[in-house]
């Protein structure tokens, strides 16, 4: 017999978490392939390497009133929150069957029915929105929380500070998940943040902050659990900092001139949250190689299907260019 205590999660749960990790990875890597092959025209911010942040956090959002607010690097958050990958892939292709009818694209994926209040093209645009959703949770007393994902570059936007302070003052169940991948575009977080001590700075606003290794899904899962629980119980906002590398450039096509030679390859080798997850569950024996292979197969199939469906999906009609600007006008 294996040691299930090692993770404290059931086999079904582990399979589901793994499915999410693998789906995000496959989704992102396939976009990269499609872009390189010239089959996708826009620029995409891929989250390979950071999957465990999204999955570990969203695993705790089981109240229908829970919401997340994502950012430009949002595919992983959306998938972890349960957005349909076919509808997402169609959106990335600009199909009228895309999750946003092809009007938003990669940086604006939203699925209001799943409490996904939108990726965001504006760095730092999300946190105030999450404070508002959390305020709604509080006013309604529905037990929901609102989680916002932001990067280690976004933390220096004024609106982010305002949001943190206001969340504390209004004591709303907002959770700020800061994904530290060491870069904001081509510049390091270490350079951009005065003290380099993001945790102390965030805490000084009056938020308890937990810092965690984002390459370890179990660590993220556990920490996110307490942080979200804290907010859900009405104790006000909280913060979580997840450290995990991004494997790709800032966007597809980034020449990465600013990045030390071999840094990304090294991260793929030593700091891959999926490898780490696999090693862990195999070591504890909770999952077998066959279990994992089965998920891998299903995931590849799902993404294959999504890519194929997206390629064949209907294109928007140009006459709809100004549809849905208003509910009524």
């Amino acid at each position, binding site marked *: 017999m294996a040691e299930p205590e090692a993770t404290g999660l059931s086999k079904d749960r582990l399979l589901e978490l793994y499915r999410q990790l693998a789906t995000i990875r496959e989704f992102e890597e396939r976009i990269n392939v499609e872009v390189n092959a010239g089959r996708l025209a826009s620029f995409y911010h891929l989250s390979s390497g950071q999957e465990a942040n999204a999955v570990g956090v969203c695993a705790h959002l089981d109240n229908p009133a829970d919401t997340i607010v994502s950012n430009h690097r949002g595919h992983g958050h959306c998938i972890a929150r349960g957005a349909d990958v076919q509808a997402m892939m169609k959106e990335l292709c600009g199909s009228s069957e895309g999750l946003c009818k092809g*009007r938003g694209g990669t940086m604006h994926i939203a699925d*209001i029915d799943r409490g996904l209040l939108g990726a965001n093209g*504006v760095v730092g645009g999300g946190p105030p929105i*999450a404070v508002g*959703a959390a305020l709604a949770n509080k006013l309604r007393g529905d037990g929901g929380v609102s989680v916002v994902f932001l990067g280690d570059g976004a933390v220096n936007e004024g609106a982010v500070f305002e949001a943190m302070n*206001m969340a504390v003052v209004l004591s709303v169940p907002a959770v700020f998940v800061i994904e530290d991948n060491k870069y904001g575009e081509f510049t390091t977080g270490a350079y951009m943040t005065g003290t380099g001590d993001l945790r102390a700075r965030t805490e000084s606003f009056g938020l308890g902050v937990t810092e965690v290794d984002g390459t370890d899904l179990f660590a993220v899962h556990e920490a996110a659990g307490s942080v979200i629980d804290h907010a859900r119980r009405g104790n006000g906002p909280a913060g979580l900092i997840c450290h995990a590398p991004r494997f790709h450039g800032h966007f597809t096509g980034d020449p990465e001139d600013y990045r030390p030679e071999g840094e990304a390859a090294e991260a793929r080798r030593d700091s891959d949250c999926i490898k780490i997850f696999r090693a862990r569950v195999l070591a504890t024996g909770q999952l077998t190689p066959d279990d994992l292979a089965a998920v891998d197969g299903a995931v590849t199939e799902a993404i294959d299907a999504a890519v194929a469906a997206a390629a064949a999906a209907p294109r928007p009609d140009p006459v709809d260019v100004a549809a*849905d600007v*208003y509910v009524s006008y």
Partner: protein
Amino acid sequence: MPVKDMRTAINEALRQEMEADESVFCIGEDLVGGFGTDCGKDQGNAGSFGVTAGLYSQFGGKRIMDTPISEAAIIGAAAGAALVGMRPVAEIMFADFVTLCMDPLVNQMAKFRYMFGGKTTCPAVVRLPCGAIPGSGAGPHHSQTIYALMTAIPGLKVVIPSNAYDAKGLLVSAIRDDDPVLYFEPKALYTESCDVPDEPYAIPLGEAAMPREGDDVTVVAFGAMVPAAIAAIDSLATEGITCDLVDPRTTSPLDEEVILESVEATGRLVVVDESPPRCGLTADIAALAADKAFWSLQAPVKQVTAPHAPTPFATELELAHIPSPERITQAIREVLA
């Protein structure tokens, strides 16, 4: 009918909509006052202009809440709360400070529905006291109108009442509307009164009013310029010159029909706004006429605006900045010359 000033009319609309719908709440700076103090009263000053007086006593801190001085967070929070179905009414203390919350207004609220594929609504209202109070010396940072900038933004609706009656009915509609609405309150009109029914009533967004009717010239005026235009028009009436006065009441959506019908009838157009002239509402209306009512036009279309300059402090300069009834009269005469 009871006579009320615009401040009271707005207060009444807020109170009645809050009574009618639990999802309506107010958020902003110093709407209540006294948060964190022990002032021994139910509330402090109730805002810079007293518009929110009495709401805290009636509804408490869950329905009307003061915030830190953080405009981006206030409007961003209104956006987020509205996206999940609440009906926030946020206040920016002076319209001049939209400079600090343009992102949640322009990139977030305004674009949610479109970029999310038509699947969301954002029923937020943002109240913005705006414009100059002639003689008050509010100066360059406390006198701007801002509403033309917002009219330019697809996804936002823009309301500019010109009297207490409209102020109430339009705010009721704004709160009930499922799109984000920027509701501008011309500060110069807060103390102006007219008949305002006690019961709630809604004036549809997108329907112009026509406070004066005449044959010779169409005058279109916005907000605080409506009373100025009325003064100008009434003075000319004694000479036998009569004008249509169109008060669009909302600039987005805009009631093009009423404007165009009037211009087609009179053949002459004067557009009046207290904002500076470039890329503004007066140009917008003039250009509309130059396209769609061109064949009816019998004279150059005149715009009466502030100069291309910030609003000055000194009373003499401030009064020179804001279009006067005399300047409106002169423009009407010009298009009749």
